[in-house]
């Protein structure tokens, strides 16, 4: 019974943050704010949904002793590590590409990064 409460908390946090990320992707005005909303919020939410799976499989493994669940937990940990490494790196690459391809933030007047590079 206690494991269900823990799983409910973790999955609730994960689903709420994924919802906020996709809503921010829909609602925000330009590329940089959309990137800010979607990348950070979906990374955090995916960490929590994966943590729920890890806790579930470790508890099933300790109660039953089936080796399938420890494999499930280890592979989920590997997928979570890849998610944590690759997601901010990809967001950084997208932001740099957006700036270099000339997309300005909404209502921006000056671009000091470009002025620094011209000097």
């Amino acid at each position, binding site marked *: 019974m206690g494991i*269900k409460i823990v*799983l*409910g908390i973790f*999955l609730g946090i*994960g*689903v709420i943050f*994924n*919802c906020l*990320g*996709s*809503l921010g*992707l*829909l609602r925000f005005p330009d*590329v940089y704010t*959309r*990137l800010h909303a*979607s*990348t950070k919020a*979906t*990374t955090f*939410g*995916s960490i929590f*949904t*994966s943590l*729920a*799976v890890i806790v*579930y*499989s470790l508890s099933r493994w300790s109660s039953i002793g089936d080796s*399938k*669940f420890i*494999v*499930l937990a280890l*592979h*989920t940990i*590997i*997928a979570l590590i*890849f*998610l944590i490494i*690759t*997601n901010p*790196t*990809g*967001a950084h*690459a*997208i932001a*740099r*590409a*957006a700036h*270099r*391809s000339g*997309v300005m933030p909404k209502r921006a007047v000056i671009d000091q990064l470009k002025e620094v590079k011209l000097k």
Partner: protein
Amino acid sequence: MNEFFKIFIIPGGLLLIFMLIALIRLILGPTTPDRVVALDTINTLVVAGMILVGAAYEEVIYIDVAIVYALLSYIGTLYVAKYLEGGPRE
């Protein structure tokens, strides 16, 4: 199908709805980086949902597919970003 099936499959379905919300941005997006951001979000949600489905059906193969999908989507995002930056500038 044990008692934990519904606990994992319902957040999986909710993640599917959030993928559809991101798909709206991918269709509407005024500039190309907007579409790339939406595709990156969809990829993250697909990985998270695939892990949840693997836990619901108690199959490890879904999670192996999620690992490969995460790496391939990362390479795809980097490639499109490199393409958007343009060639070498003097």
